[in-house]
């Protein structure tokens, strides 16, 4: 199990390679990237300069370990990788990578969905958008659970 909360970018190919195994027939992944999130009429008129991710380190670490341990057991995974960045990011930058490996595809696909759905509702991160006119806006969670 690999859980990393870091500023620096990650190497997707290297992370996928690290979970290959003779017992694994399926490797599923999710990659979250930076996009213009806010949907207020005002913000939609402006260009996004950057997205700053703030987090509560102890709470995030505790929670990601909890859901990774649960997913590994529940979906009978071989490996789980969760890497989430913080700090200032720019449009199209990578934010979060989730990789799950298993013998068969149903388990790894289901596990990736479980992890990202729960991360988005309960992992203590917050996003601050900075626009080209230097104004800022904290992102609010979407009204629905899927995004």
């Amino acid at each position, binding site marked *: 199990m690999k859980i990393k909360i870091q500023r620096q970018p990650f190497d997707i190919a290297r992370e996928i390679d690290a979970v290959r195994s003779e017992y694994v027939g399926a490797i599923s992944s999710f990659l979250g990237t930076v996009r213009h999130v806010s949907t207020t009429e005002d913000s939609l008129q402006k260009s996004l300069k950057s997205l700053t991710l703030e987090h*509560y380190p102890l709470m995030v670490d505790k929670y990601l370990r909890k859901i990774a341990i649960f997913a590994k057991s529940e979906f009978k995974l071989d490996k789980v990788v969760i890497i989430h960045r913080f700090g200032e990011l720019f449009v199209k930058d990578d934010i979060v990578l989730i990789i799950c490996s298993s013998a068969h595809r149903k388990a790894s696909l289901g596990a990736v969905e479980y992890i990202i759905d729960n991360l988005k*509702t309960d*992992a*203590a991160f*917050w*996003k601050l958008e900075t626009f080209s006119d230097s104004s800022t806006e904290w992102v609010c969670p979407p009204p629905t659970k899927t995004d």
Partner: protein
Amino acid sequence: MKILYFAWVRTKTGIASEIITTDAKTIGELIEHLIQKSSNYKDAFSDLKGLCFSVNQTFATLETQIKKGDEIAFFPPVTGG
């Protein structure tokens, strides 16, 4: 006990963390104590429906009991991923 503030809650209170002494026994009572400190705190806690709380890194409610030595955090709904 240690109090942490994140995101716009931190912006409104003006501080990221503080150590306080209080007789408050629940999150709700703690908030009542904090809003007495200044108008900044009153503003930060003006809409409790838009706030989340945690005690020792576990989500909490207004009724969650707190004690000396706990780490309590106040923050908006999360937006990770």
